[in-house]
């Protein structure tokens, strides 16, 4: 009852004309930020903070949060159309989203992304409304050993979902694990694999690896294959630009899976938003009746990660609003905005500033609806991007990639790195190595190494800490099962063949 009263109070605030306007502005800006690779929501919010400083805190946080979750809607657009992930959390959307576009279903893919984002975004806000305090306490029971186990499960799923050859997937993943160890090591403060380059001391930014291995490699591959005549065709007529019934039906479990996975992973302050979309994708493939369709343009392979990265935003707001603990870069900046307004983020925020808390929560229901209405009509428009001839499109993709990387790192050295990763991605594609496991190894490896070494610091070097804690042990067992499963399948086939031959 208390929740309903709070929510009603919140809607009273969020529906005020000015706050509606701020919400709309945030959603529009967020969509734009999401579309542009290199300009992430974190940087955009930081740049807008001085402006929002003069607004009242409720309107301000409504707008800034709109940018945060709006970016997740926009992030899928370039992933689907150009194979350029706009944000770390939309890498998984590239895998099947881009394949759908290549098969002439770009409009359908964009539509599915928008719908999945809306369903999961709203589901996430409902959970945020109902269970914020207890679930925040659950998140605190996770510490380094649990994160290590969770990330091990993530990497085991990578090897499983990467498709034809688990060996090649594992090798690509190991390469990613190596790249992620470049830079100053947190634990010893010593530089690793930097070869005297100060530009490498902070490690390599994720965007450089992702854009290089996906977008640049894709352009190189297309140019080499001289596919300019066979660019993805865009069917005419509005009907063909929106998802059809079969495609939507295929996504129904993906929406549930993505929403729950995204929210739960989002709540964990140490997990970060890129992981939730990968895990949702892997789950979707793991429990699918047609795993062979994944990577070939399966709608559910797009819906699951898109749902997850939207539910994740609400999840990440749980520890931020209930404990003052941001789960990632963007929530950290939202938190510092609250401080600038003179609010005190922490366990007392809900009591001290109910207008901000409930106003924000209510505005997120409205914002998600706005984003759906905003993004669906844009689908046919964006889908036209693929009508652009290859001699314009490919230089444009390279241009966006270079600008995106320069925007992140602001150095030419990193643009050189981008070229290097582009060539690497091209070589891998020629040799039949999948790119996604490399990216996954890169994204998850950093946190995984940290979690392992933190666990050992906690236990004084005793590995037993990883199996003596129930959640960690459970997740590790799941990881082992995931790795064994294909072997069991292979053994079964071999056994059946043996029986057939003998019988």
């Amino acid at each position, binding site marked *: 009852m208390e929740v309903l009263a709070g929510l009603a109070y919140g809607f009273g605030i969020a529906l005020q004309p000015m706050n509606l306007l701020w919400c709309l502005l945030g959603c529009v800006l967020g969509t734009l930020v999401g579309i542009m690779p290199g300009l992430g929501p974190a940087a955009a919010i930081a740049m807008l903070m*001085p402006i929002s400083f003069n607004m009242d805190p409720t309107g301000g946080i409504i707008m800034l949060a709109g940018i945060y979750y709006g970016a997740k809607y926009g992030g899928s657009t370039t992933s689907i159309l150009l194979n350029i992930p706009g944000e770390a959390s939309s890498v998984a959307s590239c895998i099947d989203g881009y394949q759908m576009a290549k098969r002439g279903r770009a409009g359908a893919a964009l539509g599915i992304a928008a719908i999945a984002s809306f369903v999961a975004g709203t589901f996430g806000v409902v959970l945020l409304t109902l269970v914020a305090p207890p679930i925040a306490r659950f*998140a605190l029971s996770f510490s380094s050993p649990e994160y290590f186990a969770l990330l091990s499960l993530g990497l085991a799923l990578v090897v499983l979902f990467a498709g034809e050859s688990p060996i090649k997937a594992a090798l690509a993943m190991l390469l990613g694990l190596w790249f992620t160890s470049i830079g*100053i090591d*947190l634990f010893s403060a010593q530089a690793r694999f930097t070869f005297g380059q*100060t530009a490498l*001391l902070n490690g390599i930014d994720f965007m450089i690896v992702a854009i290089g291995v996906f977008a640049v490699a894709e352009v190189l591959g297309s140019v080499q294959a001289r596919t300019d005549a066979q660019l993805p065709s865009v069917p005419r007529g509005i009907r063909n630009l929106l998802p059809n019934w079969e495609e939507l039906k295929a996504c129904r479990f993906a929406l549930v899976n993505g929403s729950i996975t995204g929210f739960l992973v989002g709540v964990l*302050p140490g997990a970060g938003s890129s992981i939730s979309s990968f895990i949702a994708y892997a789950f979707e493939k793991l429990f699918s009746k047609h795993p062979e369709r994944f990577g070939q343009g399966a709608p559910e392979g797009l819906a699951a990660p898109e749902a997850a990265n939207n539910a994740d935003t609400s999840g990440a707001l749980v520890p931020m609003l209930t404990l003052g603990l941001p789960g990632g870069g963007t929530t*950290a900046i939202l938190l510092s905005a609250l*401080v600038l307004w003179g609010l005190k983020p922490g366990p007392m925020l809900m009591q001290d500033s109910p207008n901000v808390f409930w106003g924000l929560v209510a505005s997120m229901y409205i914002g998600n609806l706005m984003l759906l209405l905003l993004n669906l009509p844009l689908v046919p428009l964006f889908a036209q991007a693929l009508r652009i001839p290859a001699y314009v499109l490919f230089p444009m993709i390279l241009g966006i990639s270079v600008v995106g990387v320069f925007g992140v790192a602001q150095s030419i050295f990193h643009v050189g790195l981008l070229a290097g990763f582009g060539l690497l991605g091209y070589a891998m594609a020629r040799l039949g190595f999948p790119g996604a496991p490399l990216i996954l190894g890169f994204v998850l490896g950093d946190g995984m190494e940290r979690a392992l070494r933190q666990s050992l*610091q906690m236990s004084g070097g005793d590995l037993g800490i990883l199996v003596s804690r129930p959640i960690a042990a459970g997740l590790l067992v799941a990881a082992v099962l995931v790795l064994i499963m294909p072997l069991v399948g292979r053994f079964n086939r071999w056994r059946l063949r043996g029986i057939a031959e003998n019988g």
Partner: protein
Amino acid sequence: MKRRGFLVGAAALTVLSGVGPAEAQYTPSRPIDLVVHSGPGAGPDAFGRALIAAIEAEKISPVRIQINHKIGGGGATAASYIIEKKGDTNTIGLFTSAWIANPLVQADMKATVKEMTPVVRLVIEPAVFAVRADSPYKSMQEIVDAAKKDPTKIKQSGGSPLARDAIVRHVLMSNTGARWAFVSFPTGSERIAALLGGHVDMMIIEPSEAGELIRGGQMRALAQVSDKRLSTFPNTPTLREAGFNVPNVPQARGFVAPPDTPREVIAFYEQLFEKLVKSPTWQKYLTDNQFEDAFLKSEETGKFFDQYSDLMRGILTGAGIRVVR
């Protein structure tokens, strides 16, 4: 006689007052570039933006000031950029203690504050030792005693081994002979989550963050890492008051200019920041964020760099970390 005296006095005054304007003659003609080593939104960037906002609100700068991000290398990119900008009077860099400490350990970090021209030191960030609200330890002494009895018992969450929290731990451990574990987390919120979840026993935390968690009944403060008690923690003793005779490890922020910047340029910046420090907008920002006002002019800031380097070198060597310069 009287008249002559007056004239002499007036002449002397003109000469004397002439010294001031002559020194402060430099005024920048184009916007000032304020170099920070973090990306938008992170600590130094947020501090720089708040500072610019205060300068604009108080209208004390003749030209606009803009942020220039030189991200990477734990401050190395920004520091070497400042060195490269030798001769440029429109560029200043926002230093943090990391600019002084990291090059002591990283051989690749060749740009040190020693080569730059010190401008001012602005603030020192205090910190507090905190435990979970239901922790059995009521004082710093109790937790140190427990660590002495069993070196595997107590764990502290913190940042890099060069960060202040790690340094304070080393200082305390060598002072008391106690040992406890240090678990490194890259972000503050992970350090707090580890404490609130009961996975570690204590941490060093920024007072503004601690304040809210204490008010929310999640945390308790045991001691302050500062020279004197903060107004918001009137009942929490400083480490010295709690009986630990250890040097304070200050975490400072301020500005440096490129190498060999002329005296009159430095004088301009000194006056700019002196006006800022006296302004109510800035004072309110310091109170809100629990920063300690620690204004020093160029010469004293240079001395501070030397003292801090020596202190850190001693502590790092004592902690078994290889010091390269």
